[in-house]
Structures are given as C-alpha cells and as structure tokens.
C-alpha cells in the first residue's frame, strides 16, 4: 500500500521571516521551514546529520543553510551535506496556497 500523504498548514507566509528559519513541530516530526531571499519556501528535517544541530537556527545563504553547531553546509533542495562533509537529511515538499504555507508529509 502506498503511504498516505498528509498536507499540513503550518501558518501564513508572512509569519516566516525572510532568510531565517522557523521550527515547526508537527506531531512527532520537527521541521525547519525557511524563506529564501528569492521568496521560495523550503522545508527540511530540523536536525543536522552531524551531531543533531538545530538547523532552523542556521544561517541561510542562497539555497543552503549552515548548521549553527559546526558549520556544515547543507543544500535545502535535496538535503545533501556539501563536501567535504558527508550525509543527507530529509526534505519535504511545500506549497503556498492563499498565502498559507503547506508542508506535505
């Protein structure tokens, strides 16, 4: 059976400050939502694969976030950690509907 997909409203676009992250807890899942400089929204798992740094607090630069703990650089689109570090985190699809941000789980 194909897993169910949930569409979850996490708040209005205006509540997410530009070039900053926001922590969203949806049930047991902790997700970091970012609004990039170009207006796009990205959603990723909120924990760094290195030592669990909180990614929502990282510095956002273009399509990347730098983990606040030890500065790993992570691509917000595909979740890949940039070389020379290694690893990957989960990314979530997002949509914007009538100014509301929706995360698809």
């Amino acid at each position: 059976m194909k897993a169910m997909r949930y569409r979850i409203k996490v708040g209005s676009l205006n509540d997410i400050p530009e070039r900053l992250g926001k922590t969203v807890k949806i049930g047991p899942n902790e997700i970091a939502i970012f609004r990039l400089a170009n207006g796009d929204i990205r959603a990723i798992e909120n924990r760094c694969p290195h030592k669990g740094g909180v990614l929502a607090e990282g510095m956002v630069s273009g399509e990347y976030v730098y983990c606040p703990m030890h500065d790993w650089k992570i691509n917000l689109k595909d979740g890949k950690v940039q070389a020379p570090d290694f690893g990957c985190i989960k990314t979530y699809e997002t949509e914007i509907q009538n100014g509301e941000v929706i995360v698809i789980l």
Partner: protein
Amino acid sequence: MTKQKLVLVGNGMAGVRTIEEIIKLAPDRFEITIFGREPYPNYNRIQLSKVLQGDTSIKDITINDWQWYEDHQILLYPGETVINIYPEDQLVFTSKGRKVQYDKLILATGSLPFMLPIPGANKEGVTAFRDIKDCERIIEYSKMYKKSAVIGGGLLGLEAARGLLNLGMEVSVVHLGDYLMDRQLDKTAGKLLQKELELQGMKFYLEKQTKEILGDQKVKGLRFHDGQEIPVDLVVMAVGIKPNIQLAKESGIPFNRGILVNDWLETQAPNIYAVGECAEHRETVYGVVAPLYEQGKVLAKRICGKESLPYKGSAVSTQLKVSGVDVFSAGEIFENEQIKTIMSYDDYRGIYKKILIRDGKIIGAVLFGDTGEGNRLFNLIKKEADIFEYTLSCRNEQNGCSLVATIADEEIICGCNGVKKGTIVNAIQSQGLTTVEQVKGYTNASRSCGGCKSSVADLLEYTLGDQFKRQEQNEPICSCTTLSRDDVIKEIREKVLTMTMEVMRVLNWKTEDGCSKCRPALNYYLGMLHPLLYQDERESRFVNERLHANIQKDGTFSVVPRMYGGVTNAEELRRIADVAEKYNVPLIKLTGGQRIDLVGVKKEDLPSVWADLGMPSGFAYGKSLRTVKTCVGDTFCRFGTQDSIAMGIRMERKFQRISMPHKVKMAVSACPRNCAESGIKDLGVVGVDGAWEIYVGGNGGTHLRAGDLFCRVKTQEEVLEMAGAYLQYYRETAHYLERTSIWVERLGLEHIKSILADKDTRQALNERLDETLSVLKDPWQETINSGEIQKELYKTVNIPVDIK
C-alpha cells in the same frame, strides 16, 4: 586530434599530484578519469594527524575540491573501487560494474595499514589510522570511552597518541623495540623523546609484544606475551603499512613488495604505470610524500612524451608532527667503525644533535629539541656535501646573517614538494606574491605537511623586507571573493555601500548570497563604518548573536545577565533564584567571568526569563565586551592600592554592547598580585601606588598569550580615555574574528603605541566610539518590548496531530 584516455586508479596524494603535473605540461592532451575508493575529493592525508590533534578540521584538509575536477574536465568517480584490469583490452572494471577504456593507466593505490594478525584484532574498537573514516571513528570513540592504546611507537603511532590525548583520552603506547621511533632515531634521541612525551601524559610499554586483544565483541584490554594485561576501550594499530598491490596482483601485473616499476615509473605491463606508496622502485618502497612527488614529476613527463631524467630514488627525512616536540632525522643514523660523528647534547635545555660523517661527507643527522637546522642538513645529506660546508655555514650564522639569506638558491625549502629557495624567491619577485598562501598556490611550497611554513614566511620577509608584514592582510576574506578585508572596506567607503547584499552584488561576489564566513564579517564592517545609519542584519548574524543567548548542543539556550564588575546583591540573587525555579532551569553555574549562567533555557521562554530577571544582557554570546573581572581592591584588601571594583564597573558600563571584531574581555586588579588576571585579558588594568598600568593583547583561551604593558596613567578618566581609543582602533583595523592577541602581533605593539600616543588621534577615535555607543540599546529589553521580534524569532510553531 582526439584526446587520449588517461585513467588514474586512486584519488590520493601521489596520483592526483601526478595529474596536476600532467595538466601543467599538456592541458588538453588527455581525457582524464579518476577512480577513488574514498568518497571525498583529493585530500591531504598527512594532516589527519593535525585533525586528530584538533589543530585543523576535515573540511580544511581538502587539496583539490570538487570544483577543481570540474574546472579541468576530470571525470571523478568518488567512492568507486577498480576491481580488475584487462591489460590486453586496455579496460578497467569497477565495483559498480562500470567498464572504462584507457590508453594510459596509472596505478596509485597507496598502502594499506598493516593489522597484526592476532586474536581479537577484528573486535569492535580496534582501528587503523590511515584515512578520514579512521579519524572520525577514533574521534567518536573518544567521546564514549576513556582508555586507549596505540600499538606501535613509530611516527604514526606517536602522532595518533598525541591526538588521543588531545581528545581527552588516557593513552598507552605499546612498542616492540626498546626505545621509540627506533627506525628513525638513535637511542639517545629516542629516550629524550620518551621523556618529553611522558611529560605530555603518555604512558609507555616498551619491549612488549601484544599477544591478544581481549573482550567479547568490544575491546576490553590487551594481553602481552609476558602475560601482563592492561584494560583499554580503543586500540589504534600503527605498526606499519604495506603497499596496496591487490589490484595489480589480480590483473597479472608483476610485483614484489610493491608494484615493480623502472626509472620511468613504467610497470612491466604496456601502458600501465604506477606511482606512490604502491610502487617499488629499485627495491625501495617509500612511505612519505617527498619522493612520491618526485616520482610524479618524472611520470608526468614520461606520459606527456617529454624528455626527462630518470628517477633514481630519493633520500628521505622525517619529522614528528607533535606540538611541543621537535624531532628530525635523515639519512643514515647509526654509527659504525667507518662513520664518525659530531655530537652535542645540552641536557639542561633538552637539545641533542648528531651528525654522521663518512669519508668527510655528511651522510645522516638526528636532531632533538631544536630542528631549525633540519632542512639545511637534509640538503647537505642529499648532495653528500663535505662536512666543511656545514661548519662554514654555522659560522656565517653566528656572524648574524639570517639562515634563509645565507643558503644557496638551489637548496630545498619545502621537503615534501621539493621546492627550492631560488624558485620561491623568483616567484615572489616575478609574480608579486606577498603571502604564504600565495606562495603555496604558486609553487606548492608548504602545501603538504606544512612544516616549512615559517621558512617560507622568512623568505617572504627576506625578499620583501618590511613590506611583508603590511601585505599580509591581503588574504581574501573568504572563498566567495578575491577581495581582502582592506579592499572591501575601501570599496564600502568609496561606493557608499550600505547592505550586505549590495556589497556582494557590486563587488561581484562569486556566490549569490555569501557564506557563513563573509556574511557576519560584512555585517560587522558595515556597522562599524556607518554606526548611525546601518540597520543590523540579524539574518547575517550567527544564531547566538541573533537570539542574544548561547545555543547549547540540545538546542536550548543559556542566559547570562550582566553583573557589573562581578558585583551582585541579595535582591538580585533572589530574583535569579526565583527565575531558575519558575522555569525549571536545569543548571545554575558560576562562570569563569564572575557571574551567573542559567543553562538550558527553552527558546520560547527566553523573553519572559529576561523580563522576570529584570537585568540587562551580559553579552556572553557576543563579539562584544564580555566581562570586566575585578578583584576586591583597596576598600577591603590589605594589599589594594586602588579601587578596582569601581574602575571595573565604570569600564563595563561604558563599553558594553558595542560590536567588536571578536569578543573582548577585561579585568581590573588593584595590585600586581593581579587576582583578577589582568595579564591575560584583551585589556587588563593593574592598579599600583598612584597609577594604573594598562596591559593589552592578553588571551587566556586557545592561544595563551600574556598581555604587554601598554602604558601607565594616573586617573580613572585617563584609563577610560586610553581604553576607548584602543578599542576603537581595534574595531577599525582588525579583521573580523581576529582577537586582540593576534591583532597586536600583526600590527606590532610599537605601532599601536605610536598611533595612540597622539592626543588628537585618541580624541578622534573616542568620538567615533561614542557615536557608536550613542545608539546602542539593551537587546533583551528590546525583545521584551517588541511582540514582533518575539513572534518572528522566538516562537516555535506547534501542530499537535497524530501521524504514523
């Protein structure tokens, strides 16, 4: 012309260096494919020792990053092993089922660490020390366990052991011989080394053969042949390496200990070459990079069809990369009837030197304690120089000529990369190089083990004279730009730039939106240059400075309110206690800065914790003034000569909240006993009878440095005036993230003194500082007052749903 297909197996140090040489000789001749078993771009294996010792990080040891492969149109398959070669069809076959045709094939598969075939060697907690993976595994282990053992007291073993100590583990080194590094040192030097390392905290088991590794699944201990057992949780095997010849073996390419090559690095199979630690040349297999790079040069010429002299083998030298211990050895080190020695031993300073001479020629040397002569001796050994040449150069030095000035142009400065003095001096002059980084980029000097960095710096200084020091500031601020800090500041001023985005766009940044290095730096520079106009960009601040609290490893924060001069009162303490109870603060701690830390506060609670405390932010998270520690002073202490508490409080109130290039710490003591530790502060004040002494550039942190006496003044007002001018000069001239201790050394104490000696200059600096101060507010209060800030930065969204 269609390109020839060149395939390299092994993305390591020797192989990739050979490719670099080939690209230099014939940039367009080959279509290059590289297979590397490790999932990283080409990195500096040598520096793994430094990574383990905490001096550098894995991401800083990359030699050629992914971009380099792209720039040279090299197809790299990282994490892919070549498992077979079919020489007749000129094909290689990989672990991922890929088949690739070659016209020329280079094998550079390096070595494998030798693992003792003893019972228990496959238990969890036994590791080699060869690659990034090993290094990470060791670091992981060090966090969970306390006791470690290194088997093998050679170079690699001792470097690993030093790393383990730095990682906080207890370390036992087990060694078969009766003294350490017995292949590179004589017994005297080996014993000196042992004494030094024992002082550093290592424990040694000499003349011990390990018989068995104990434990169930995990390592529990070691048992030696004599029956003795020691408990350990981690075992690093560093007993030697063996050339990695498996691929050659399977593919029918002749080998002995290593893959057999001739003087042109050709194997006995057509169009297949071998280079590096996997190759055996004239019955020798090498284990350090200098000879491998020489091989690479010869091979590159051969493959490109250029004339070259044959490779005839190399002399090697070794140096131990353990801080605080200087050891050097080269050539033959054991005396016999035909060999005479020059020896000196300074027991008091722990300096030992032995030079070995046969038929009047220098053939080897061992140095302990002072290895400054290492390179020169190595050069003399390589050309089998007359001992007379050595004694002569010693005399020159005593006459006051600097070492780099006296040596000949063809002498080698960088042993690893074989770079001669003449080449470096030439490059500096013809290319206008001004920094060690640039020399490294242009000539390869200091690119591998880094041991010759100081000689390269000496050469820069010798070639450029005074210009060198000033020029040093010209490093780009990060890899997003080629501009240095000074260039950027100049442009910001001239073009009147006012936002980080604008700076990056106008100055042609290579990245769209900067990185975690340049963004905070630009934010600082802009704020420093336009104190009244600039709107601080919180998104360009590191989390701590954005949220005004220190992030903890679990994502909670710490709260450190100001306690000016380390002075508090009962009412304040009561409020702190109440807050701690109300918010269930897990840890209340006295900091090293004379105040109280509430550790483990949830982010959402921060604004109300601050409101309930009713105290201003202590900026314990900021590139800003941290604390002003004070001692008891003359109101109570029997030795006190001045009111240190009042002085300290005035300083803390005056200089708090200003953005600085790095954090700034201060202290005021009331007599030279210096109970507030003013001697290791960015700015320390010591009261003496009728005067205040000001010390600068002290640091009690990573790079311990005692402050220098800057001046003596009479009154508290003069202290504030001098301190203000000093801080503003630091703000205006330091690189972002440069502590005063480094800055003072870069600019020179005398230079700073001479600038601040002028009263008008001081006044102008203080005016600019006061301007900055005039608009600063307490950030905690600002947050408490602004619902907007609270919502944007401190609120987490909680959606209670049930999802499986």
